[in-house]
C-alpha cells in the first residue's frame, strides 16, 4: 500500500495524483504518428467521440444509481455550461498551441470539458477511502487506467492540430488535476460531498455528450467518408464500454 506511514490526507492526495499522471500516458500512441492529414483529424475525432460516448454511458450508469433526476439535472447544467463557454470563446480571437480560430476553440473546449469532468472522479477517489484503503486502491487503479483513453481522446484532438506529444501529455495531466485537488476535501467531508455526486457525474456526462455532438462528430463527418467515421466511432465506443466493464 502506498505511503502507509504518511498522513491520510497526503495518501489521498497521492492516490489522486497517480490517476492524474496516468492520463498523460494517453498521448504515447501519438509518438508513432508524425503527420496527420484532414482525414486523419476526422478519424482522431471519431476515436475521441467513441471513447467519450463510452465514458458517458459509464458515467450515466454510475450517476443513476444515486438518482436519475439528479443525474439528468446535472446533465442539463453540463450542456448549458458548454453552450455558455462556446458563446464566450466565440467572442474572442483564440490561439491555443499552434492552432488559431476554430481549431483552437475546439482544443480549448476539449481541455475544459475533460477538466470539468475530472472533478467528479476526484470526489469518487476521496469518497472511496470511506470503504477502507484497499477499496480506495481498487477505485484509484480503476480510475487511473480509465484515464488513459481519456488522455488519448484529448491527444486525438490536440496532436493533429499541431501540438507536440509532450504538450498533449501535459494538457492531459492538467485535465485530471481536479482529481487530487477534489479527492482531499471529498475524503475530509465525505458526507457533504456524496449527495452532490450524481449532479457532478451528470454534469460531466452532459458536457461530454454535448461536446461530441456539437463539435467532434460534425467535423469528422465533414472531413472523411461517413461510413468509416461511424464505424471508427462505434468501435471506439464499444472498446471503451468493454474497458470499463473489465475494470
Amino acid at each position: 500500500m502506498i505511503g502507509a506511514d504518511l498522513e491520510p490526507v497526503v495518501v489521498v492526495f497521492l492516490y489522486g495524483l497517480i490517476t492524474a499522471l496516468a492520463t498523460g500516458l494517453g498521448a504515447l500512441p501519438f509518438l508513432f504518428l508524425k503527420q496527420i492529414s484532414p482525414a486523419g483529424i476526422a478519424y482522431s475525432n471519431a476515436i475521441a467521440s467513441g471513447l467519450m460516448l463510452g465514458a458517458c454511458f459509464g458515467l450515466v450508469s454510475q450517476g443513476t444509481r444515486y438518482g436519475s433526476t439528479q443525474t439528468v439535472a446535472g446533465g442539463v447544467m453540463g450542456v448549458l455550461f458548454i453552450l455558455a463557454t462556446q458563446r464566450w470563446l466565440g467572442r474572442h480571437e483564440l490561439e491555443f498551441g499552434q492552432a488559431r480560430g476554430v481549431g483552437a476553440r475546439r482544443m480549448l473546449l476539449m481541455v475544459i470539458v475533460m477538466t470539468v469532468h475530472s472533478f467528479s472522479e476526484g470526489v469518487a477517489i476521496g469518497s472511496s477511502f470511506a470503504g477502507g484503503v484497499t477499496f480506495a486502491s481498487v477505485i484509484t487503479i480503476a480510475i487511473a487506467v480509465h484515464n488513459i483513453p481519456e488522455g488519448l481522446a484529448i491527444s486525438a484532438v490536440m496532436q493533429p492540430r499541431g501540438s507536440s506529444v509532450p504538450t498533449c501529455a501535459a494538457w492531459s495531466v492538467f485535465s485530471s488535476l481536479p482529481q487530487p485537488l477534489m479527492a482531499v476535501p471529498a475524503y475530509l467531508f465525505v458526507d457533504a460531498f456524496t449527495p452532490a455526486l450524481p449532479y457532478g457525474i451528470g454534469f460531466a456526462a452532459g458536457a461530454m455528450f454535448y461536446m461530441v455532438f456539437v463539435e467532434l462528430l460534425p467535423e469528422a463527418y465533414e472531413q472523411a467518408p461517413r461510413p468509416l467515421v461511424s464505424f471508427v466511432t462505434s468501435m471506439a465506443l464499444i472498446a471503451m464500454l468493454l474497458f470499463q466493464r473489465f475494470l
Partner: protein
Amino acid sequence: MNPTLLILELSTAAALTSALGVLPLVGRRRLPTIWVGWGNALAAGMMLGAAYMLSALEASVPMVTEIRPELPEAIGAVLGICFIYWTHVAVGTAGVELNQAHAEDPLHGYRILMVNGLHSASEGMAMAVAMVIDLKFGVLVALALAVHNIPEATVLAAVLHGRGLSLRQIAGLAVATNVSQVLLAVAAYSVVIAAPATLPWVQGFAVGTLVQLVLIELLPESYREAGQTSIALVTVVALGVVVLLRGFVG
C-alpha cells in the same frame, strides 16, 4: 399474459405508431428541411438512449455460462456494427444522402425502404433482449422505440411525398418497413428464451447495431439539414428523456 404474445403486441403497436409520422405533412406539400433534421436527431437520441439502457444492464443479466458475459457481448456488438456497415456498403447506401426528396435515381426510393426495413429489424432485436432481461424494462424500450418511430417515419414521409406518393400510401409503407421490427422482436425473443446462452451475444449485437445506425444514418443527415447546435441539443435532450424514464421505471 404469454410473454411471446406480449412482445408481439408491443412490437406491432410500435410498428403501427410509425403511421403517425405522416401527420406533420397533412395540409402541406413539403416539410421544412430543419424539421427533417430535428426528426432524425430526436430518433438518434432515443436510439442512443435505448443502446445505453441495454449496455448498462450487466448486473441484471443472468449468468448462464461459466464465461463472463462481457466478452460475448462485446463480440456481438462488433458483429452488429460490421453487419450494419457492410449492409450499407452492399445495398449501395453507404455514401448516399438518404433524405433526398427529389432524387433522380428511381432506385433511391427502394433503397430508402430497404434501409428502413433493416433499421427496424435491429430495433426489434433490442426490444426482444430488453423483454428477456426484465418485463418493465422491455416495455420501456418498446415505448422509446415506438415514439422514435414517429419522427423516423416523418423523415421517410418527407422523402416519399417529394417523390409523389400520397400520405395514405406513405403511412402504409412506414408501417410495412417496420414489419421487420415485429418479426425480429418475436424471433430473437424466442431464440433467447430457447437458448439463454445466446443472451449476451444478442444483447451486444443489438447495442452495436443501434449505435452504428445512429452514427451512419441519422446524425450525418441531420447535421446537413439543421446545423450542429440544434442537432446536438435535440439529440442530448432526447437521450436525457430516455435516461429519466429509465429512472422512473426503476
